[in-house]
């Protein structure tokens, strides 16, 4: 996109806002076309502008080239996780301490929590880790049967108490059942909820407070637009605000980005989610079968964003 900005400055004068304004406006537009939230696109451009302003370019560097390089670097920096979580290692550590490692899947409605929970179960089984699943979506019709089907296919035990039960309690009992049966990992499915739904966010916060999971995975779909920012921000904020003991609040540890196979090159939600939460994308769901779970490829995301 910056190729059209063929103007080159010879390396004497320092760059001004005006020099880079055109290239940045095009960049912002490109990012938004690639489904980056408006607010995030603006912030990335702003940080690149601050970074470039006053800089002197080496002889015969095109402005477009300089802006592109700065943007590429910024995107890499944002998407590269600051903290990395090695789930398999953590699972072994928990096992050594004689307790099941618990992962809770959270997110808004219909993003793919239950399906990708089943994919994670499959991945764990491939790594010789034993798994139990807890059916803590006790609200949505068919939610329990959905997990029952997955468990039967995967040959994994399901802990369920039917519908209309308190999900926090079901998770609690499931944890005890998993401990009794020396299961390595307990995967807790929860009902989808809108980030502004106060009672439901409160219930989620109770579930997490009561059960102290090892990992809270936020499941978000790659299809989501500007709402990605609000989802991540509010889930984190609500989990903090509503925690019984705010110093012990457990917020989002990682992101599972789903439906990556439905968006072509419009990969911007990945950037919006990571930027808004600072949490790493730990898994990427790219299809509807158990094997459709991969790791994030930062390079290819950046390439798609700038192509």
């Amino acid at each position, binding site marked *: 996109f910056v190729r059209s900005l063929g103007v080159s400055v010879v390396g004497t004068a320092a760059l001004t806002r005006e020099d880079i304004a055109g290239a940045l406006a095009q960049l912002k*537009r490109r990012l*938004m*076309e*690639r*489904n980056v*939230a*408006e*607010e995030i696109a603006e912030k990335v451009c702003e940080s690149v502008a601050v970074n470039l302003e006053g800089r002197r370019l080496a002889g015969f560097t095109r402005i477009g080239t300089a802006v592109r390089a700065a943007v590429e670097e910024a995107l890499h920096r944002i998407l590269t996780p600051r903290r990395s979580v090695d789930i398999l290692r953590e699972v072994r550590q928990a096992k050594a301490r004689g307790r099941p490692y618990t992962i809770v899947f959270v997110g*808004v*409605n*219909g*993003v*793919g929590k*239950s*399906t990708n929970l*089943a994919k994670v179960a499959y991945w764990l089984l491939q790594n010789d880790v034993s798994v139990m699943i807890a059916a803590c979506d006790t*609200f*949505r*019709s*068919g*939610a*329990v*049967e*959905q*997990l*029952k*089907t*997955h468990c039967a296919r995967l040959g994994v035990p399901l802990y369920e108490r039917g519908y209309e039960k308190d999900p926090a309690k079901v998770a609690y009992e499931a944890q005890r059942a998993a401990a009794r049966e020396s299961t390595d990992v307990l995967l807790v499915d929860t009902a989808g909820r*809108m*980030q*502004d*739904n106060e009672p439901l966010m409160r219930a989620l916060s109770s579930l997490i407070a009561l059960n102290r999971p090892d990992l809270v995975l936020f499941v978000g*779909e*790659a*299809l*989501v*637009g*500007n*709402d*990605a920012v*609000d*989802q991540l921000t*509010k889930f984190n904020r609500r989990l903090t605000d509503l925690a019984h003991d705010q110093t012990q609040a457990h917020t989002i540890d990682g992101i599972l980005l789903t*439906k990556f*196979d*439905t*968006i*072509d090159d*419009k990969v*911007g*939600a990945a950037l919006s989610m990571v930027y808004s939460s600072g949490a790493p994308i730990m898994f990427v769901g790219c299809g*509807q079968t158990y094997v459709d779970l991969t790791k994030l490829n930062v390079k290819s995301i950046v390439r798609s964003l700038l192509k």
Partner: protein
Amino acid sequence: MVLNEMGQKISQALAFINNAETLDEKVLDACLKEICTALLQADVNAKLVFGLRTNVKIRANNADKGAGLNKRKIVEKAVADEVTSILDSGVDEKKLTDLKKGQPNVIMFVGLQGAGKTTTCTKYGAYYKKKGFKPALVCADTFRAGAFDQLKQNATKMGIPFFGSYSETDPAVIAQQGVEKFRAAKHDLIIVDTSGRHKQEEALFEEMRQVATNVQPSLVIFVMDGSIGQAAFDQAKAFKDAVEVGAVIMTKMDGHAKGGGALSAVAATKSPIIFIGTGEHMDEFERFEAKAFVGRLLGRGDWRGFVDK
């Protein structure tokens, strides 16, 4: 409603033009920037948004050339026309929602994975049941784990007869059986729920075409999640190209999203939004009137009158 937030910003931007002393390039650019940002923040398709900006600017420039014309009015009308063309399909939604009793209306629901089809099918059935129709639900989703149980539990809750199978794997076969059964039983509203699918997987689209061929729907409804972003337009268009999408239902409008992505589906399918979903419960479902909405959006009671001037 959430969409109104976007409308307020557009009205503010238009008011800004009206209050400016002179309508020069700078004022126009500032106004257009506001409008475009509001639309982009609401997930309206970026190409449509930038197209709007270009078109309004062209019309404003032409106004400069034409003598004696009121530029303010021209810009205002240009903005209004462009926004309307994004939001309004031009199809009268009443024709799609005023179903005729006593004849078998076969309605097929399609859409991306997790958009809310199964939930909305039952809401839709319950809505017409209240109006005196005799609805029935057919589960043609043989793929998703627990899909039939989900539909069954929803249908039972609302007292609507349903049909499906745990063993048959061909959705087109089940769909046909279900529709035939309910036709014979003189149901006047037969709703067919299908699996979630996306344009990148051709086999899934082929399956959808087969279901449509077998049930010959009188209306195909495209269900779209209100929080969808820039992928909306292309996906919606692909659905429209594969089956005769005639209407759109936008779901999850109780969330924080402004619904602009789903609005792009209107442009892509040339079909109106007829209902919106505003919650997980079966009664959280409302009629959507695009014309009234566009009118409110631009702060005018009688929007039609303005456009046609």
